[in-house]
């Protein structure tokens, strides 16, 4: 066997074994199992909403306003006479959609900014000063300001929340890129004459994904919580489509007389966020034990 061939095979085998070991650890991790289970459950409910819900989330019936929980309406009805259970399940759709889009946007822009700042020395200082400024007032206030400015729509809520979560993510990516770029295999690739972009994408970024994935799981949780805050302030996604946040915002005027309208979507947020936090903790333990906080 030629030396080159055996090298390649030896290179692949441990990688496969590492992946298998990683998956085993992932499945064995209780936090991942529990958190992942919760998240999968909620996502499944949201996807299957039309089939699992007994009512139409938008159809009002003013003769059935503010009914307390009963066999007919497990979570009661809101002040339009709409079934709260149905709305919470459909609300999950919109809230998860917003969370997912925020994760996507934060992942892309956080990686782009953090990756460039970490890899190209000349960009580091200006980019990080910008992130400092960006982070130097409360993220939620920034999101409120942006959402109020742009007007309420799902897209604008996603933009507002992404703007609030990008800088921290960019910092995390930058920090791990700083570590990775000095590693031997990057030096080697550079010595072999690989282009900057290739090195950045193939070696540096791929090897800094672990902290990014963990961070994005938390970003998902933060986005779900923050969507609710925006709705509460009155700058969340517009009606009539329900989201966890705007169901609560709708119900708070009747908080004393009809607490079920406020309480159930709050519990739903709690469950989703708990699931995501558990998942994040588990992933962190499995992916990178050194990252524990």
């Amino acid at each position: 066997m030629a030396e080159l061939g055996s090298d390649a095979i030896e290179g692949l085998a441990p990688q496969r074994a590492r992946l298998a070991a990683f998956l085993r650890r992932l499945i064995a991790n209780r936090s991942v199992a529990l958190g992942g289970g919760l998240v999968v459950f909620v996502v499944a409910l949201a996807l299957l909403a039309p089939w699992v819900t007994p009512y139409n989330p938008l159809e009002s019936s003013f003769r059935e306003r503010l009914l307390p929980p009963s066999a007919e309406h497990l979570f009661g009805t809101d002040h339009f006479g709409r079934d709260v259970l149905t709305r919470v399940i459909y609300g999950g759709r919109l809230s998860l959609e917003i969370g997912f889009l925020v994760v996507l946007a934060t992942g892309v822009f956080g990686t782009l900014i953090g990756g460039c700042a970490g890899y190209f020395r000349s960009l580091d200082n200006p980019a990080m000063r910008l992130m400092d400024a960006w982070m130097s007032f409360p993220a939620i206030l920034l999101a409120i300001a942006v959402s109020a400015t742009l007007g309420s729509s799902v897209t604008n809520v996603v933009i507002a929340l992404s703007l609030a979560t990008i800088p921290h993510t960019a910092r995390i990516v930058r920090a791990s890129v700083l570590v990775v770029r000095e590693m031997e295999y990057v030096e080697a690739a550079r010595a072999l004459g690989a282009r900057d972009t290739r090195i950045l994408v193939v070696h540096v970024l791929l090897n800094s994904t672990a902290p990014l994935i963990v961070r994005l799981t938390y970003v998902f949780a933060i986005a779900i919580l923050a969507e609710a805050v925006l709705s509460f302030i009155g700058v969340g996604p517009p009606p009539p489509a329900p989201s966890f946040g705007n169901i609560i915002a709708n119900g708070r005027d009747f908080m004393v007389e009809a607490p079920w309208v406020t309480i159930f979507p709050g519990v739903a947020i709690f469950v989703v966020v708990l699931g995501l936090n558990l998942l994040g903790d588990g992933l962190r333990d499995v992916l990178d034990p050194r990252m524990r906080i």
Partner: protein
Amino acid sequence: MWSFVLRRLISSIPVLFLVSLMTFGLIWLVPGDPASVFLDASATPEQVANLRRELGLDQPLWTQMLSWYERVLSGDLGQSILLNRSVAAAILERLPITLSLAAIALVLAVILGILLGSLAAVNHGGWGDQSIMTVALLGLSIPDFWLGLVLIVVFAVQLGWLPSGGFVAITEDPGGWAMSMALPAFTLTITQIGFIARMTRSSMLDVLRQDFVRTADAKGLGHGFVVMRHALPNAMMPILTVTGVIAGGLLGGAVVVEQVFALPGVGRLIIGAILSRDFPVIQGGLLMLAVIYLLVNLIVDMLYAVIDPRVRLG
């Protein structure tokens, strides 16, 4: 040390400049203006235009920017359009409320968080560890404003023990002040304890595994003593870091909690200003929050050096 502080202060100037540029960007993008808040739906466009002139809002943006920077450099944040006072006065009136709310929550969260985190670490893997960590995680996952609403229903409406909102100055009535701060501070603390407890636990675990602790243990110094005397101080560094991080988070949390409990703090001031387009207050308020955030982080960095003499500030 002082040269470090000076350098940090100087390096924060470009950051603050960027902050002010960003807020101008926001204001430039935002539709509507404060004139409409004075008028009801029946106001005609001419009336709005009149009022805009009265309020000095018909100047081009760059003119407004130039005069703003000119004034800020001479220490004047300008006049609020709606509040009938200077922006600085409006902020200074409310700052104590926000800061005391955040400070109470910070102190409570740090004390309780370190206590719980240490207990969990010492009890590593045991029943206590698991239940404390579960509670910490639950606290992290509760939406803060929703918790506030539920607490109002339970403690103010159902039980009638505490006021549902509003603020009593400590100088006026210390008892009333404590009552008015109880629910907001509790709401804010619950959501922050988790961070500190988790952080404390993991850094304590790292330290407890280290040689000098084992040595001390071996010398038979008593585990509790060892933890308090050797392990905790060494675990303070990462805890301090997370404290710096949540100090920013606390300000954000305070903004939301102020809204729920109708506390007239800076967060409520800024949100009100955003919704009513009181531009000078938005500008000044955000700038002030940025200054506070930068100061808190500077203090945290200085504390590093105080707690651990090995750290050289440079």
